[in-house]
């Protein structure tokens, strides 16, 4: 059972109040009509599945019903940080931060 900090309610709540909504920071193409089938298909269906740090979108479904981002280790399930929509994660994988 994860104990998750909601940045809107400003307190920890049990996992059963939340739903995970998949990979965070997916930018919808500004002009879908201009996308190739490959670009649009990748936007719609292709997601990362990392072993290690993952940035995810969560929603406090039974609480304030607001969305926020979570950086979570997919090996240990440990939540490294919680941050608001529009913010950038401060905990990022070494291979990403080295770029």
């Amino acid at each position: 059972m994860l104990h998750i900090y909601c940045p809107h309610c400003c307190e920890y709540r049990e996992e059963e109040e939340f739903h995970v909504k998949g990979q965070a920071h997916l930018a919808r193409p500004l002009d879908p009509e201009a996308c190739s089938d490959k670009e649009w298909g990748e936007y719609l269906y292709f997601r990362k599945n990392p072993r290690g740090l993952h940035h995810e979108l969560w929603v406090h479904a039974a609480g304030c019903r607001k969305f926020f981002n979570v950086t979570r280790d997919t090996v240990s399930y440990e939540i490294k940080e919680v941050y608001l929509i529009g913010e950038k994660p401060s905990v990022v994988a070494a291979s990403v931060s080295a770029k």
Partner: protein
Amino acid sequence: MSDTNSVAIMNQVPDAAAGVRAESPLHHADLATVAHKGNKIGGVHFREVGLMGHLTLRCDPNNAELIGAAARVLGVELPLTPLSSVESGGTIVRWIAPDEWLITVPNDQSFDLETRFRAEMSGHYSLVNGSGGLTIYQVSGENVVDMLKKSTPVDLHDSEFPVGKVVSTVFAKSGAVIRRTGANEFELLVRRSFADYLWLWIQSASAEFGLVVEA
């Protein structure tokens, strides 16, 4: 304001004079009879506060104009601190989300309140009358926390859940907005469609402590 006038509002309070009978979500349970025949002492007390006016207000908490207008209408400032509530006269305002509040007033005041909101506020906000879809359960007694612990994962200890705090959470595989109104007194705001199920749940969860129904 022209955009104000374009919003259609109607008095949703059933007109008794016209022969329209209002029934709270637990009307069928006949709590008056249960209260009369049932336990007089027990660890958990239950009362339905039905047929209140429930208004959901949504607006930007950083919009001083809207926040100020809401305060003028309500006679009390909107609680901006997460999970807090304010009470003034018969009006209770609960923080639900950073841009959402749930207001309850005696039902005969809800139309007037809605009308004054429409007159005072303009621009980007939302006000929805959900009175028909919600009801309030008042639960109290020396074992009320024990009963609630069976029903919700929220930390109910005094240090974490002081009087006046309000949380939206899971409750008995359903949902509820829980507000502490006293050391051993809570208010559960539940949906009409779950009202009967939660009433049955509370009876079952309270059985070991003794349930006193009040009406």
